């Protein structure tokens, strides 16, 4: 083989191995061709900030997918955290407070409370899956239904019954809606939260024993057990971390939207799982990277944003979105299918 040809085939190989990043770039180019004014800083910032809480949720779920599990309760847990944090962070002078006598709490207290609660539900998921060998699909489906019930009970209470929880405190909305001004643009704090969470998760996945154990359990649970991995314990911790992330994302959702209902977060898990898979996480476990998950979420968000930006009719948007998901993954699969 001469050098040139080799170089060519190397590039092709690289393209194949990174097809999903290539896809992301092509997608953006496609949208820009359709509508050149898509290429603006505002759109860029919008997409990033809209992706932020989704990245956090997707990273939580991706850990579970890498374990070889799944989590259908993610969206409902996000909703629970949103409702809890919103109810504890209403402005002091707001007329329809859930707790009329509650003083304004420091921001971190309700966020922590919400995270601890979803962390516990995550732990419960992990415990059921690892100790009773209930398939994760079922365990988390039960949890999804159950958590919705709990959220609804909490939500639908005197004095105002099942009313969306609004009137959030200034501190809370600042935390979730404002940002840092750089030049003429404001970069929402949300983006920075997502970056920080991504770095933390990257470290856990790549640099710690827990991370290695996670890949091992997902790659071959029997072999992991024989290799001295405490499978149950590690699984529970990964599910717990996912719960904590849902909790944090839920508070961000409440703050970002400015209100919360028991329906907040509904079905987020499907988007998150799909994004993770598009980003290269294997549903059979053992495979996945933080960069891939982030790319997957960005692809989804660019599709959502781009289609709306192009003014594609909503029903057509569904069809296009469905098709893009399938095509993206079909291309990604080519790299595995080359073998034969």
């Amino acid at each position, binding site marked *: 083989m001469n050098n040139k040809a080799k170089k060519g085939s190397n590039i092709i190989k690289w393209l194949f191995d990174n097809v999903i990043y290539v896809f992301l770039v092509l997608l953006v180019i496609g949208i820009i061709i359709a509508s050149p*004014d898509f290429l*603006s800083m*505002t*759109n860029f910032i*919008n997409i990033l900030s*809209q992706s932020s809480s989704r990245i956090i949720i997707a990273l939580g779920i991706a850990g579970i997918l890498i374990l070889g599990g799944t989590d259908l309760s993610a969206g409902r847990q996000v909703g629970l955290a949103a409702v809890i944090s919103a109810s504890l962070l209403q402005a002091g002078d707001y*007329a*329809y407070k859930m707790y009329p006598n509650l003083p304004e709490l420091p921001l971190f207290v309700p966020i922590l409370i919400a995270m601890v609660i979803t962390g516990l539900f995550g732990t419960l998921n992990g415990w059921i899956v690892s100790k009773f060998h209930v398939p994760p699909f079922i365990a988390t489906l039960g949890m999804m239904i159950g958590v919705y019930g709990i959220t*609804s009970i909490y*939500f*639908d209470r005197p004095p105002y*019954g*099942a*009313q*969306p*929880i*609004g*009137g*959030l405190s200034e501190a809370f*909305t600042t935390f979730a*809606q404002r940002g840092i001004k750089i030049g003429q643009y404001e970069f929402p704090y949300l983006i920075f939260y997502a970056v920080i969470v991504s770095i933390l998760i990257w470290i856990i996945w790549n640099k710690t024993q827990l991370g290695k154990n996670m890949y091992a359990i997902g790659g071959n649970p029997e072999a992991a057990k024989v290799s001295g991995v405490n499978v149950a314990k590690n699984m529970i911790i990964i599910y717990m971390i996912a719960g904590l992330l849902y909790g944090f994302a839920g508070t961000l*959702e409440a703050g*970002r*939207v*400015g*209100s919360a*209902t*028991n*329906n*907040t977060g*509904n079905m987020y898990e499907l988007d998150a799982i799909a994004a993770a898979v598009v980003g290269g996480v294997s549903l059979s476990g053992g495979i996945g990277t933080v960069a891939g998950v982030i790319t997957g979420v960005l692809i989804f968000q660019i599709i*959502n*944003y781009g289609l*709306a*930006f*192009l*003014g*594609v*009719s*909503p*029903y*057509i*948007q569904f069809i296009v979105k469905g098709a893009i998901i399938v095509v993206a993954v079909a291309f990604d699969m080519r790299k595995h299918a080359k073998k034969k």
Partner: protein
Amino acid sequence: SSSTGGSSDAGKEKEGLPAVGATIYKFDDNFMSYVRRAMEDTAKGKVNLMLNDSQNDQAKQIEQIDTLIAKGAKSLAINLVDPKAAQTVVDKAKTKNIPVIFFNKEPDESVLKGYDKAYYVGTTSSESGVIQGELIAKAWEANKDKWDKNGDGKIQYVLLKGEPGHPDAEARTKFAVDTIKEKGIQVEELALDTAMWDATKATEKMDAWISKYNDTIEFVIANNDGMALGAIASLEKAGYFSGDKFMPVVGVDAIPEALEMIEKDKMVGTVLNDAKNQGKATIELATNAANGKDVLEGTEWKLDDKKAVRVPYVEITKENIQVGKDAYK
């Protein structure tokens, strides 16, 4: 098809028109689909209407508003998913000084007060419940002798609720029952369960209730017509509406199928929300706002003290069924 909006399909002709960004809380909501159509009709040739489907997700709607602002909307027409999120919408619009017309889902008064360019077009959220309650009370008084099966003077009812936490479901449930009581009629709730707006679930809940309460049910109240129809399917299966076996059923929305049922005496009544005028008023205000004019300029509408244009609900029974039918002309 005329149900779809957006700027791309008819882009050329709309160029140069001021852009109005609109979100619908759920495109396929049967009521909102009419409002949407009225909006599109009104917008033709006046503004470039950019419609978005928020898919019943407030977070999605917030994102769509970002997109609309990024695309240079001159005014916004927002059908909130969650009325309490109005403040966030206003905050976003305020920074760009873009007027906002909320419609159909009413934000808190304080939000409208806090931004001089925010208005509301629609009903009072409790009104559909109130009118449904009045309808029930009136019908009951007229047919008490037949409908009060156990003769205790009370209405033994079952209630099919929409999605819990949905503002309409909550308001309709509360105000329908409250209104009946206010009219001096005693009620007894046999069962209340959510059928999530869904006809199938309503059928199945009704199956269980008929089996359990048998003939002691005297009234079926549904938060929307879809669930009312589901209940009727179940009732028919149990032998109602043939011979002299009857059950009063009421809903909300005045969808065509419900009108048909009312004509066939399988439904007592429903509540019509005036889609045409809501859509029309929304766009007319939004157009004025987009052109930097006073929102009411050249329109037939009036603002009340809450900066709201009110379009009333109408009670529909067999007597005035034509009013309902006209809505679909």
